């Protein structure tokens, strides 16, 4: 039978058209397909459990072989870090408690305001092009699509698929992931000299353009980037120079497993130049954001200046080590716009 016979051509065309049809229906959102996915996941579970039991000894052997040297080196580095962090931790704990007290006093929302579900990782994405993990908690535990997942170090990702007893989390590094973030930067001579007991004044400037404006993107998806500069005036009793807390907001996007996520801004403004490597990145929150405000994301690892009016981009070194996740906490948060009236 020749390579391009009529029958063969019909088969290929039928498969291609079926794929295109399925893709179109699925990408537009289809409840039938969602139900089929849930059903298939349930049907596959016995096979997965059997495979897990059979493969556990092989996995352990592989890990023992491949991870031993790296773990030993990491252990040595971590011991040194723990020693260095011990005193800082006590001060940080105190600051967190004070911060939460202040937020509660002022009726402001913080991560502690929301219930959460702790879940264990039970699987990773089997593909080489997605950064996803599967957890052992699902809709019967209150998890819904879009909820943020965190661990002790900070933002891990968001829930993209929910079954009754399991969910899939898209990691921050996935190229499809995007979240609004803010960058806090302490300007001035010596950032270490910021101390409690100050008064602040805040000025907010708004940029008129937004990513993709020239391609007709919808503004709601990318709220206007804001730049806030808070001047910190210390009490007279404290004899330290005036410092500035610079606050930028932008959109953080994953860049895949091998590259750091990037924060893209809308356009350059006077404050951008003052963001420096090491500045901290938090979720920005907002009425349409899927993540509540003030979840730690990471630190600025690199500032990229793009030509023309393209603005700047920041590369962000994430706080959580996504390669070694064991447990995550799904914050049962839904933005106000998603809540049922």
């Amino acid at each position: 039978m020749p390579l391009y016979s009529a029958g063969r051509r019909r088969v290929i065309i039928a498969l291609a058209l079926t794929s295109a049809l399925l893709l179109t229906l699925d990408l537009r959102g289809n409840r039938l397909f969602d139900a089929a996915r849930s059903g298939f996941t349930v049907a596959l579970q016995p096979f997965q459990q059997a495979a897990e039991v059979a493969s556990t000894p092989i996995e352990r052997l592989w890990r023992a072989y491949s991870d031993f040297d790296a773990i030993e080196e990491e252990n040595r580095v971590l011991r040194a870090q723990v020693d260095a962090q011990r005193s800082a931790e006590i001060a940080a704990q105190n600051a967190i408690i004070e911060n939460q007290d202040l937020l509660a006093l002022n009726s402001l929302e913080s991560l502690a305001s929301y219930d959460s579900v702790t879940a264990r990782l039970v699987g990773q994405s089997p593909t080489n092009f997605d950064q996803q993990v599967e957890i052992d908690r699902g809709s019967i535990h209150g998890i819904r699509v879009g909820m943020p997942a965190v661990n002790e170090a900070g933002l891990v990702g968001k829930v993209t698929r929910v079954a009754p007893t399991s969910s899939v989390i898209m990691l921050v590094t996935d190229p499809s992931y995007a979240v609004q973030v803010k960058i806090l930067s302490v300007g001035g001579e010596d950032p270490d000299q910021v101390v409690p007991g100050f008064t602040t004044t805040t000025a907010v400037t708004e940029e008129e353009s937004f990513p993709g404006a020239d391609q007709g993107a919808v503004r709601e998806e990318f709220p206007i980037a804001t730049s806030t500069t808070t001047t910190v005036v210390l009490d007279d009793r404290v004899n330290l120079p005036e410092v500035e807390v610079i606050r930028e907001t932008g959109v953080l996007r994953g860049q895949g497993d091998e590259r750091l996520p990037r924060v893209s801004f809308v356009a350059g403004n006077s404050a951008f130049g003052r963001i420096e490597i090491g500045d901290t990145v938090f979720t920005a929150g907002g009425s349409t954001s899927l993540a509540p405000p003030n979840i730690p994301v990471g630190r600025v690892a690199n500032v990229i200046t793009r030509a023309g009016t393209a603005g700047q981009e920041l590369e962000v070194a994430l706080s959580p080590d996504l390669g070694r996740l064991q447990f995550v906490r799904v914050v049962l948060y839904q933005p106000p716009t998603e809540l049922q009236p």
Partner: protein
Amino acid sequence: MIGFLMNSWVARVIPIGMVLLAVQTTLLVELRPFGVSVQIVLAYVAATGAVGGVDRGAIVGFTVGLMYDLAVGTPLGATAVTMALAGYVAGIGRLFRIESHWWILALQSAVGAAVGEAMVPVVRLVIGEASVSPTGLLTVVGVVTAAALVASPVLAPLGRWSLSLQRSEMKLPPEIRAEV
């Protein structure tokens, strides 16, 4: 009807697909040589294409690809089309030989798997998902291809069984074989 279904390739390919998907989503997400997840399902599709030919390879690839999409949560049809292509490409060699040596089947499987894996980011790009860096893609395709090559001696008989194919009994006459 039930008897026909039980004797058809569907009744064999679907359970095999389920078992391989279970292995793919458990063992092979942990065993990652060079940080790459070996694609055993893709290797099976390519091996089946190599022994079954382009039509069967494409249809089995499409069926197993749909199962993969359902299990993993990728857009329905995205993996199906890449696996159909893998099965098709792997089956091209079958047009020129009645029955191949094991190492030719392994090469066909490897080429099919390479094409299938390389097409994944292309399809994702077409449907509006993210792109993959070329350096990462080379490593991914290299490891997936090597895995398909190594697994072919096991997966080709499995593919032959799942399509209810008999190993060809046609042999070249000894005198012609001596000349070859």
